[in-house]
């Protein structure tokens, strides 16, 4: 009988042994990490790997400059650089919205870009102090479910959403960077007082709070809300993934210079402490090149920032009809104030 016990003990020990040896095997398979490579240009990218990886590979091939790309959430990467301080390994910060860069700039962590880069993009896609340039832009749209609501009943301005008609029917994501960027644009266009009033009215209209654009869209499709404020390209991407017949929502562009129409800019900047300024500039030039801009237009379904490029397969409402971002965007884009306003309205 004692023998039985010994045999059974074996099963446990072998299971434990398996558990310990697995990671050892894993170690052989695990990728060698490139983080401490001094020759490589380190990019902190708030843009998804699948969206920009091909561009980065192309750049490496073209220039022979090696890239170490660290992907993450745009805002969390800003927090990370703030915590790292001057010791940050990042050379370039590539983000979905520029509020984070402005915050880093306030701390003196961002370098000024050279004129030849600033000259590549229109004024509305850069800041006067030259701390960043836009690489692509996204339109904000009203998402809706055609089965639940007719196009004619959709609001034509942000202010309409505060009317009693929309009580409990609107979905927003106040903690999401694209909503915050939209608010900063709102402030630039209409002033802080009007923005705060609008936020308070929206909050009083019992909106449904979501974590991100994707969650709002699901809410629209499932009838949890009738309309929601989201980015335009989700619609195109979802059609790609699920097929047009399986996408139960549509986009409504608000034209004519309404705050909703202000595009949200994905920006890029170079860190002040970077020892590889020249290589960093080369990367930015590449992202503004015709090749890369065409890629943003065709593959990620965004608006290019360089003139003369059109998407080959998306029919987007031209940026010109949506209203251009006000030049003051950069100055008001102190996110801190935007967030304070969100908190005052009880939305954050």
């Amino acid at each position, binding site marked *: *009988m*004692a023998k*039985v*016990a010994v045999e*059974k*003990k074996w*099963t*446990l020990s072998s*299971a*434990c042994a398996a*558990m*310990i040896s*697995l*990671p050892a*095997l*894993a170690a*052989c*398979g*695990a*990728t060698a*990490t*490139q*983080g401490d490579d001094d020759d490589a240009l380190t990019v902190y990218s708030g843009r*998804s*790997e*699948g969206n920009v990886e091909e561009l980065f590979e192309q750049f490496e091939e073209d220039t022979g400059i090696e890239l*170490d*790309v*660290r992907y993450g*959430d745009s*805002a*969390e990467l800003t*927090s990370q650089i703030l*915590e790292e*301080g001057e*010791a940050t*390994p990042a050379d370039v910060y590539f983000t979905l919205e520029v509020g*984070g860069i402005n915050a880093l700039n306030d701390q003196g962590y961002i370098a000024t870009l050279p004129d030849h880069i600033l000259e590549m993009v229109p004024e509305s896609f850069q800041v006067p102090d030259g701390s960043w340039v836009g690489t692509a832009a996204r339109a904000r749209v009203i998402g809706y479910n055609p089965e639940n609501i007719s196009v004619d009943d959709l609001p034509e301005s942000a202010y309409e959403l505060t009317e009693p008609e929309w009580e409990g029917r609107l979905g927003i994501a106040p*903690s999401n960077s694209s909503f*915050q960027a939209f608010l900063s644009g709102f402030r630039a266009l209409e002033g802080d007082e009007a923005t705060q009033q609008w936020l308070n009215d929206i909050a009083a209209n019992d909106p449904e709070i*979501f*974590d991100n654009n*994707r*969650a709002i869209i*699901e*809410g629209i499709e*499932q009838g949890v809300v009738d309309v929601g404020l989201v980015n335009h390209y*989700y619609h195109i*991407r*979802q059609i*790609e*993934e*699920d097929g047009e017949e399986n996408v139960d929502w549509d986009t409504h562009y608000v034209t004519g210079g309404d705050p909703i129409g202000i595009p949200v800019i994905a920006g890029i900047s170079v860190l002040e402490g970077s020892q590889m300024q020249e290589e960093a500039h080369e990367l930015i030039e590449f992202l503004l090149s015709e090749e890369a801009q065409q890629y943003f237009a065709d593959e990620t379904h965004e608006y290019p920032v360089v003139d003369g490029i059109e998407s080959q397969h998306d029919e987007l409402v031209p940026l010109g009809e949506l209203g251009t971002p006000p030049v003051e965007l950069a100055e008001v884009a102190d996110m*801190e104030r*935007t*967030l304070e306003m*969100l*908190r005052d309205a*009880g939305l*954050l």
Partner: protein
Amino acid sequence: MFQLANRDVRTERRRLPRWVNRFRRLPLLLTAAGLAVAAIVLVPLYHLILRAFERGPGYVLEMAFSERNAELLWRTGVLAVTVTASCLVIGVACAWLITRSDIPFRRTLGVLFTLPLAVPSLVAGSAWLSVWPGIAGFGGVFLVLTLGSYPFVMLPVMAALRSGDIATEEAARSLGKGPVRTFFLVTVRGVRPAAAAGSLLTMLYVLGDFAAPSLMRYETFTIGIFASYRGAFDRTPAAIFGCVLVLVAAIIMIMERRARGKAARFGQIRVGKGVSSRPPVVPLGRAKWPAFIGSLGLLGGAIGFPVGIVIQWFISGSSRGFDMERIVETTANTLWFSAGGALLAVVMAFPIAVLAARHDSTLSRSLESVSYLGHALPAITIGLAFVFVGIRVVPGWYQQTPLLVLAYAVLFLPLAVVAVRAGIAAAPASLEEVSRSLGKNGIITHLRVTIPLAIPGVAAGVALVFLSAAKELPATLLLRPTGANTLTTEMWTLTNRMMFAASAPYALLLLLVSAIPALVMGLAVIERKKKREGKQKWQM
């Protein structure tokens, strides 16, 4: 003989002040190791306080007592209490069914019951929402968190039920109490320390979880903290929220301590000589099949349903595909990082667990409480603290495997402490005393007696930490080596881009990888029973 010797030492020590005595009774090396571990665990707290007071104490008070804060606190409290209560009921019921009843397929169920721990709340939440949008809100978070965290209660209770002193139960039965009354009068009280420890883990987990409440749109404290961080530059309010969370956790720990304290005294009543006998099997009778069907229902909701939805993602989406190279790479990284975190967590837990189980004192109790800190704070808070301190103190480790592994160990240390402590407490202390009386010193005794005795507990600890680390996201994103993806980060990237079909293989692999430690935990528990069966027959 031994008792006499002990008494001599005690009278000699009485001449010294009491606190000196208490301190002297603690083994020096273990205490030093425990203090070192505590110092590491306190790093995030130090960072949190530093950030919270950046704008002066006035701002801290203003934020801490804001209306919104009170509302978040209330909502978080309601959620934590209800989820813990339901986990307690489900966890104790499952543990009892597996250890004491004659439910069909008992051992298979025992292993399957631990698996829901491996389902990330992101996956479970998305699955429920996709078929039942109306569930969003309190109901949804409650469901997802209950189904995902009842094993926190079940595992320690299962261990306690196995090692509990059966003689007390037998005495109750012989005094004419029926099986039901015996269960409530004796068994329930006997497992109270284990149940309290499990409830504590559950409650702290609920406080710190982000994915489930955010998907279900139920605002908790952690949501508030993430929202502040995502508005990047606003780290001060986030840190103040974090401090409040630590205070809440401290209150919960004091409550748990009380629940455990009373029960521990009760549990000390031992009728037998410390060798627990094999628990008698309670026939379920007519309740057998309903109990079995109920168990299947639980497993269906906690594992079957989310897995089914993930498979459906895979079938219906156009982004599906196997990038073999990438799958192998992310799986290998997940195994490597999580196993490292798990082993380190158990090593760090060992001194604290030994002190807690064998040397009760104010210091050992405080050390144990401190070790729970990581579980109560949102992972992003711990992650950012490691960013701040890591890049300054150990720049060579920054964004390298060691720092990530250390962060995992700190985040999930309490899981290891609870498991290892339970393992040690279940082994009779007399064996260690024999070793010492044979002239072996403390370290040798621990290496050759305590650790082998605690192996089931250690295995459970490794497994629990492994499961949790494998599905961890925020700290992983901050601290992983640049370019190294795990199954969870890959899932995050793909679902963000709405490529659900492409993310499905990673979700399924994560479950598969986590099934290994679940199996080890299951085996560890079953093994103990087998051995005892053998021993009993041999004794006869």
